[in-house]
């Protein structure tokens, strides 16, 4: 009875497994295959990782932008989530609405809105100039700064949601207990609340970092063509120069670096716990 039931379960998930194999694993293998066979068999494409200054630069840009974006997003997301967890039901609903609102705006509209705010004659520059705080307009967009602003804005909900959902599981009583045992508000936060919100913090960090690695629209729009990230270069290699060997090599390395960062994180935390499998 038990064994046959189990077989039924396997059959039930079979379509999903098959779907994964056909539409995900197989193409993935193809990608890896192309990366070592096109244009000639061998690891020539991968040697470009070492040899070519352009690829170094693109990787460095990608990692720098992603790390900075992740750091800012996670800290800002933590503050937003913490506030949401503390305020009343009404304010929380409004905050959640505002956080999700950015999700509903198209990435183009968002990027354009940032351009309008940050450009030389934009609201911020003219405002600062009229206040007499600056003489010359600041370069706030069409550079790495603008890209990071846009990416942080894009990513914020992705950081807020896991952190907030983790925080709702933290018993407020534990913080009270800490206070009652003599901890100042800061110590109670640092020694009790912060460690307990670590799973949310880590999943937000992973989520934001991994997502950031794949970014190219926002960098393309707000970077003024000067902030080229790995995904954009993959697209160029794949669709424009048709150097599929190079494109698949970069895609494979991108995928590999996602796994690598997960593995690094896994050394320090229980990922199953972070992703709620346990």
């Amino acid at each position, binding site marked *: 009875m038990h064994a046959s039931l189990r077989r039924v379960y396997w059959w039930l998930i079979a379509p999903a497994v098959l779907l994964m194999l056909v539409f995900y694993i197989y193409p993935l293998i193809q990608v890896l295959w192309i990366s070592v066979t096109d244009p000639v068999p061998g690891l020539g494409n991968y040697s470009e990782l070492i040899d070519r200054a352009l690829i170094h630069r693109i990787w460095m840009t990608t990692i720098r932008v992603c790390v900075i974006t992740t750091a800012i997003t996670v800290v800002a997301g933590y503050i937003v989530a913490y506030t949401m967890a503390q305020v009343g039901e009404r304010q929380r609903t409004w905050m959640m609405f505002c956080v999700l609102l950015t999700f509903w705006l198209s990435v183009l509209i968002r990027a354009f809105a940032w351009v309008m705010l940050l450009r030389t004659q934009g609201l911020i520059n003219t405002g600062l100039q009229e206040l007499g705080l600056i003489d010359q307009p600041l370069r706030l967009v069409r550079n790495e700064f603008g890209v990071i602003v846009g990416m942080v804005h894009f990513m914020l909900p992705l950081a807020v949601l896991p952190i907030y959902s983790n925080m709702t599981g933290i*018993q407020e*009583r*534990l913080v*009270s*207990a*800490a*206070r*009652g*045992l*003599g*901890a*100042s*508000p800061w*110590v*109670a936060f640092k*020694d*009790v609340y912060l*460690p*307990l919100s670590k799973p949310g913090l880590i999943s937000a960090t992973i989520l934001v970092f991994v997502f950031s690695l794949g970014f190219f629209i926002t960098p393309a729009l707000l970077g003024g063509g000067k902030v080229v990230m790995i995904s954009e270069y993959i697209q160029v290699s794949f669709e424009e120069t048709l150097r599929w060997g190079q494109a698949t090599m970069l895609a494979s390395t991108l995928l590999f670096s996602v796994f690598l960062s997960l593995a690094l994180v896994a050394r320090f935390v229980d990922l199953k716990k972070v992703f709620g499998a346990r």
Partner: protein
Amino acid sequence: MPEGSTGARSGHALSLRNLSKVYGSLAAVDGVDLDVPRGSFLTLLGPSGSGKTTILMSIAGFVEPSGGSILLDDTDITRFPPDKRNFGMVFQGYALFPHMTVADNIWFPLKVRGVSKADASAKIKNALELVQMGHLAERYPSQLSGGQQQRVALARAIVFEPDLLLLDEPLSALDKKLRADLQWELKSLHQRLGTTFIYVTHDQEEALSMSDTIIILRDGKIEQQGVPGELYEKPATRFVADFLGKSNFLEGTVGEVKDGAFTYVCGGQPLVQAGAAKHTKMSGQVLIALRPEKIALTTERPAATNAVSGQITAFNYYGSAYHFQVKTEALGDLIATTPAWTCAIEPSIGNTIWLGWEPDASVVVRDR
């Protein structure tokens, strides 16, 4: 500010002066005056919504009172933040830090007071032994049973020798047997430490078994306070008589008042009550509370001053005792209990029996 030494005389006294807490238009605590003597075990007892937890949280500093003041010895601590009060607190559901080991949980209050773990180790060990948890110091709370967690919570609350120990329904999540065991332990802990304990519960048995003083709360006000025996034997109101233990209530009209006693008529049945006919209404109505265990059950009419007969409508056997429901003509349904091994009647439904009690077995209570 810990006092260094422990001992029966090191406890602190706490006073509440006209304490109140208003939520919107609802007064959760309504002008409570209370003195907690040094080193005593005081219990705040009441049903949910009676304000007992709000009072405790005000003492702890988690709830800011709307009015009145809280004095520790002679210091007004009403506006002190929780961490500046130096009170130990045991929360409902333990509130152990799940990311710390048992030892680290207990170290926590010392750590925030600047004591390194090495320096604290003796105290941690001591506190753990005090609650018989020495062998589980390196476990995490999730690896402990409910009773073990409660012991750790207790150890954590006392390790820094607080001026006062506040306990918020600490035993409510435990099963009955464990609860009974821990009642003994808590009481002996209190005696050994000499710290003033303020204990909140809705469980009257817990209150009776451990407290020096019980404060019965109702709708944010003190209904009655006193030592357990006094409260049980001399409830002032129907509420207290009903909440603390069980009672039969007899409503009668006062008849003849004699020296130290009076007669009253209930359902046509004349009965005698010792004491003065206090709380009597204009109509001459009086309310008498009669504890079930004070009724003697016999098969023949007893010699007791007050006696009625009735039929058993239901009974429960508890091993140590029988609980009977008896239907009487004059007094309606009454409950009566008797030790099982001395039970003088045949416990069977429909059986006609006699219930008898002396005038001083029952008390006059206010009808509120």
